[in-house]
């Protein structure tokens, strides 16, 4: 039964990683990366690594999306003024 959880979360991680690469818009990619962070944390719990899961939750949940969106806002604000 424990293997079933590992297999399901592995497939979820593979799917969300592929989606994160296929989505080309940075804003939408930040959303998919947030979901990838959560799914990775669940996979790490399934592989009995709670410390790494906690670390991934803290980083992938709020920190990485915030950094990505602030970078997008800064780059978009510069480009917006020239048009």
């Amino acid at each position: 039964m424990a293997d079933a959880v590992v297999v399901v979360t592995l497939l979820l991680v593979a799917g969300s990683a592929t989606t994160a690469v296929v989505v080309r818009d940075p804003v939408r990619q930040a959303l998919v990366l947030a979901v990838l962070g959560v799914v990775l944390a669940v996979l790490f719990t399934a592989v009995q690594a709670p410390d790494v899961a906690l670390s991934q939750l803290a980083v992938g949940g709020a920190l990485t999306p915030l950094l990505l969106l602030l970078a997008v806002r800064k780059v978009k604000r510069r480009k917006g003024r020239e048009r």
Partner: protein
Amino acid sequence: MDVLPYLVAVWIFLAGCYGLATSRNLIHAVGCLSVCQSATYVLLLAVGYRDDATAPVFSDIEPGSRPVVDPVVQALALTDVVVGATVTALLLALVIQVGKRHGTVDPDELSELRG
């Protein structure tokens, strides 16, 4: 099942590399790089797994009462996740500087500007 986690790690790494190489926006490329990094976590933890074992944390179980997985790979992955986040921040800072100096974050346009 014996080799699935390793193949998933390889798939994620190759997908990240493909995204990195064909990206038309540097912020998207930084996202693809963090996907590549997560492939290494999956591989590391898959190497350290032991069937029906539990985490080597003995705050709520008796030491030695249950088989445990490998803590060394977990320590490697643990610090790597946090350092990876700060390196992603450094890369985004570089992208903001590129955007400020060249007015664009499309790698193809950038090479043309200098050429």
